[in-house]
């Protein structure tokens, strides 16, 4: 019984953790495509350059070191900032691609709200109705 209670407690903690997500992945409201987590990972690591419908994707990040961006890197990409930087160093200096452009939170909201090609991350509390929340961590 004690074991069951503690299992329940762990589950509850997980559930609370999920609800108190802090970072959201946002797209333009007209973009109603379903994007799974693997696809998202490929978009943010430059392996995938377009949305599932084939239209080109412009990926945006918050400035390096931003706590929301770091959380996204950790949760969605499974990489620490240093690991991600090492990954991009390899890509940049072999001419295989460029990392997502970095913009401020205000620019992020404005760009994603106005350009249907964009996808970015933002603090969930800052995501208003001008954008569509795809997933949150």
């Amino acid at each position, binding site marked *: 019984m004690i074991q069951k209670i503690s299992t329940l407690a762990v589950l509850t903690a997980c559930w609370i953790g999920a609800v108190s997500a802090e970072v959201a992945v946002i797209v333009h409201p007209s973009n109603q495509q379903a994007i799974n987590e693997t696809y998202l990972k490929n978009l943010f690591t430059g392996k995938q350059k377009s949305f599932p419908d084939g239209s080109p994707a412009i990926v945006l990040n918050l400035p390096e070191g931003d706590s929301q961006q770091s959380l996204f890197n950790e949760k969605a990409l499974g990489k*620490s900032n240093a690991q991600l930087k090492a990954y991009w*160093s390899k890509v940049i200096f072999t001419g295989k691609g460029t990392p997502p452009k970095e913009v401020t939170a205000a620019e992020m909201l404005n760009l994603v709200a106005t350009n249907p090609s964009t996808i970015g991350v933002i603090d969930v509390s800052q995501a208003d109705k001008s954008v569509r929340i795809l997933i949150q961590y």
Partner: protein
Amino acid sequence: MNRFFVLLLLVASSNFYTVANDRIQFSGYGSVVGGKVLSGQVDPSGEKEFQVDFYDYAFYTTEFDFEQESMVAVQMRADVVENLSATVQLVAKGADGWSPDVDWAYLSYQVGQNGTLMAGRRMLPMYYFSEYMEVGYAYPWIRPPANLYWWEITQFNGLTYTHSFNFDDWTLNASVFGGRETQRDIKSHDFWRNRGGYYFPPEGTYISGTADVSWSKILGTNLALSNDWIDLRASYFRTHYNTTSDIFFTDELDLNNDGVVDQVIERFFKPDGSRYISGDWALTDFDLDFYGLGGSLAFQYVTLLVDYNYVVYDDGYGSEFPTFYVSLVYNHDVWQPYIGLSSAKLKLTKDWQGFGIGEAEEHQIVTLGVRYNLGSNAAIKLEYNDFSDKGDRLPWYDFSYHNDASLLSVGVDFVF
């Protein structure tokens, strides 16, 4: 050394961190590495040496030295017109007297969503780490294993076409490349010449100074398959490998017939005034085939890195070089301790003028080290390498750089 600091100062003062504008981007990387041979066998030069870079002729002795592998590179990428960009990389190395070289210069054209055509000067994609072997920040160790990454040619001028395919959570990058490359006055050949000879010219002929190496008719392909934890890469290319060197003949004159040489005349030029050049024979002019299979597997805490390669020369000896590398890296949040083993062998498969066949040499490097990430732009590394000569069996000779040696190095790698 002054030039290094000037370059660093330039980098620090010119705000390279920021994107100058949307059309031009500056970035760069560098390493400050110092090392010292701890123990080993004395080479014919009278020193205990550990060779770390054959291309730039970098090696450590028992004296602590931090110019052998320290380097800084600045990359500029500019969007020329839509879908066309230009990339230039300037690299200055301590081993090269800090004189900046254009290591990379190419145009990149985006073909549709998934294709890229690159024209110009780039790294030659040989080993798993070849394309970014100088970007220390991008891998755990201080350097990729020196007994594998030993070629004089690391870049080429030519064309590369890459196409990427996505299916489910897998990405396949397929590329074909072709071109050529020549390196002149290679110091490592002088190094070998001074320490027991590199190849064996006819008696009375001496190789003078350095050598020129060219790899022509390079043609190859790379297939890279990855998902979020596996990254595999197969590589193949063929090239025509030619080494030439200025040589001279000596005439020993016994003027008074007393059996003692009185005068030695060195003849550098043929009667028609052109130089004597060595290189047009089966040991220095042949085809090379390179086969490689490598990859990384990222588990929850541990990353496994492997690379297996086979190089075949169509030379007089029928030389074959099986090499492999395996490394395990533990990924703590900021600490990455690692171990590695690299092994290289030379097998002679054809009997050249009675020289015999069989395994001619074999050497291994065992590596232990740790990387510590200082924020997300720099990492400090401490590494120990043990080079062991597993024997230079007959019919080969004992090359000096194959002697046993252990090396301790410390370095800081950074990106900006």
